[in-house]
């Protein structure tokens, strides 16, 4: 025999025995004992238990109570009997209500914990929402519970998949007003004697609707249960927000970790490349200077060696300048600049001149607009910008091809472009081309470099109030365009 069955049997037996004793011994005071099984059933089974036992007691007592009433009318004994049964009903109802309330609170607390666990367990969102819905359905004894979470606009996701809310629907109404909606009687799918009640509670976070809970019951949906669902909605909204923030944090940490790993790898490669880049001119410097010291060479050969030493020393100096600039930029100080009004054409010609006769056989063409205004820039910085860009054009285009240096006015700016017909830049690399240490190709035997040039160019351009962009597609050349502020008025004042 199950425990509830035994308890009910004992309570009913107690009521029957007490009623029989009252009738047999005509002791109305014994009726007060009925409060014991009534309170017991109320505590164990809530309002229904308490009222059922009180009603049973009253039901059994009516045949005993009515005869004296029929014979003598309403006397103190009848009043006592009626008062006793009224008391039983009150005790059964109140004690049952308190017991029900305590039980509901415990269930809701358990449900709140279950919600948080479901959403923090790492299960996919749709699956977690299914668990949450089932948990809420049990807590509320509802016929159906659905939980949906906003993805974007009117697009939501629920346990059964994506859902897009249409206008003039219950969901759209709640999403728009951000308020709980209770529908006491849904005409759709109504059953006789059991109205279809619906409660939709928005999940709000910082004033915005991030989702909704919908609960359906065929029959009553007491105010207490509605308040409980609203309270659980707050818990659920917090849990969802926590889960979302956790996911975001995880994604950010993962991205940052990956970025650090990438930087670490790039720095390692940079150190290797820098060592190689420094060693190459040093080797030349050492080799040719030893030759000069050790041998008596003809004048023309001595001069050629000294020229090589000078070129390599210059190259070494440029690398060191780049490194110093990089260091300065990384420490947040930026390059030291003294902007002046700078004529564009001589600057372009100077840059092209540096590479003429460099051995690649490239043809340098300078095309500029007539009456081009000067730009506001640091002569050394603008020179380094152009040298870097032209150097790249020479490095990544076949010998004998054209390298074009173009200049044109563009509103308040002057656009200076360096174009080549080289291998171009793959599309996927365009977004990273100006990142420090980034090199499109790291294959051994490829063009030398540290991956600093374009990064420095960008810093130098932006430090002077300009901008840089690149247009390229793999295999069809590339064009770097630097926009520098134009100088109006006297074009010749500070021209360098």
């Amino acid at each position: 025999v199950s425990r509830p069955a035994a308890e009910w049997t004992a309570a009913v037996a107690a009521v029957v025995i007490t009623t029989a004793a009252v009738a047999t011994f005509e002791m109305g005071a014994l009726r007060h004992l009925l409060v014991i099984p009534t309170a017991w059933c109320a505590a164990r089974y809530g309002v229904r238990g308490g009222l059922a036992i009180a009603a049973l007691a009253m039901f059994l007592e009516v045949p005993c109570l009515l005869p004296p009433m029929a014979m003598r009318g309403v006397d103190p004994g009848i009043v006592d009997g009626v008062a006793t049964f009224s008391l039983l009903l009150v005790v059964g109802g109140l004690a049952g209500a308190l017991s029900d309330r305590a039980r509901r609170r415990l269930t809701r607390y358990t449900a709140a914990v279950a919600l948080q666990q479901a959403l923090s367990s790492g299960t996919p969102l749709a699956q977690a929402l299914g668990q949450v819905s089932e948990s809420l359905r049990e807590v509320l004894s509802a016929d159906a519970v659905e939980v949906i979470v906003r993805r974007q606009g009117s697009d939501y996701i629920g346990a059964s998949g994506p859902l897009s809310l249409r206008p003039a629907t219950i969901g759209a109404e709640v999403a728009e007003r951000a308020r709980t909606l209770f529908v006491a009687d849904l005409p759709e799918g109504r059953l006789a004697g059991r109205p279809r009640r619906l409660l939709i509670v928005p999940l709000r976070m910082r004033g915005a609707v991030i989702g909704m809970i919908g609960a359906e019951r065929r029959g009553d949906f007491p105010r207490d249960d509605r308040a409980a669902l609203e309270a659980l909605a707050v818990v659920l909204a917090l849990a969802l927000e926590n889960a979302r923030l956790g996911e975001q944090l995880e994604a950010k940490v993962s991205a940052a970790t990956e970025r650090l790993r990438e930087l670490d790898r790039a720095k390692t490669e940079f150190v290797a490349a820098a060592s190689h880049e420094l060693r190459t001119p040093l080797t030349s410097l050492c080799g040719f200077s030893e030759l000069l010291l050790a041998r008596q060479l003809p004048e023309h050969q001595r001069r050629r060696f000294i020229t090589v030493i000078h070129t390599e020393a210059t190259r070494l100096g440029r690398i060191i300048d780049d490194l110093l600039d990089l260091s300065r930029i990384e420490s947040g100080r930026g390059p030291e600049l003294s902007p002046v009004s700078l004529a564009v054409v001589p600057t372009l010609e100077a840059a092209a001149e540096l590479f003429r006769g460099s051995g690649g056989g490239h043809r340098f063409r300078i095309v500029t607009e007539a009456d081009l205004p000067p730009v506001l820039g640091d002569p050394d910085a603008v020179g380094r910008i152009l040298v870097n860009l032209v150097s790249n054009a020479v490095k990544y285009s076949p010998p004998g091809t054209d390298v074009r240096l173009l200049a044109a006015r563009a509103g308040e700016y002057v656009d200076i472009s360096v174009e080549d017909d080289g291998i171009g830049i793959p599309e996927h690399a365009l977004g990273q081309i100006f990142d420090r240490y980034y090199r499109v190709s790291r294959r051994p035997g490829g063009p030398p470099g540290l991956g600093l040039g374009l990064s420095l160019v960008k810093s130098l351009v932006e430090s002077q109030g300009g901008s840089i962009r690149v247009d390229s597609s793999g295999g069809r050349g590339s064009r770097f365009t630097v926009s520098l502020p134009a100088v109006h008025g006297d074009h010749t004042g500070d021209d360098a």
Partner: protein
Amino acid sequence: MPRPSRPFLSLFDLPHDPDRPPRPLLPGFPLPGLCVLAGMLVAAMASGGLAGVSAHLVPVVGVTAGHGALLMIVFATAGAGWRTTLLVVGLLALAAAVSRAVWLGALAYLLVPAAVWHLARRSPGLGAIGITTPVPLRAALIGFGSGFCLGGHLLISASRTLGYEFSGHSLETYFVAVAYDVGANVISAECFFRGTLFDRLHRRFPFWLAAAVTTVAEVVRYIVDPLLPKFPVAIAGAAFYMAVLGMASCALFRASGSLVPGALGRLAFFGAYRSLRGR
């Protein structure tokens, strides 16, 4: 393959019109029809002075007007149409008249539930009040059992206290009374108090409130019934039993969605009640 954007019908997808005005509790209340029935009753009572008329006419018109009024409201609110309403009221009047003439004529009362059931199958509005809903066996047994227990309780209480005694009726009298319960009393009470009044109140209010209001209305209807003896203990007894029976019927209707379990309980109870006779 892209996923369908609407793979399931959701609660959130149900249509909603916040500006829709609330529907009246009893839409299409048949006031003119009720006035006609009341007029017939008054006319029948006014003809009481005519020798040989009132003894037969008043009870027939009384049964027709009383139960016909309840069924008329049921049919009107369910949108079943005037012709069907007139048909059922006419059958009620016919059964009341025939049963008074010949006791076997009480069988005509069975035409009323048969007609109501048939009409309910053809009219969705009428069927939706719980007449044609499939009856769960458990609910039917509970309904009958509760009526049976209450009837037994009535027999004990009444024989001890209410000035009644068990049996003593002729079979013919008992048969006519039970046929009246089947064809008029129970069906009109269940269709009106449960299928219409309780159902519509419960759409707006909690169960306990809807059931209490329905039960009070039903208790009042039985207390004012001219067939009920008018002395205090009988009235108290009627109020007690009708209250218990009314609440039980509401609970059964809510649980099963069918009027049949409550009707069975009521029939069992009235079966016991009809076996009592005043001392």
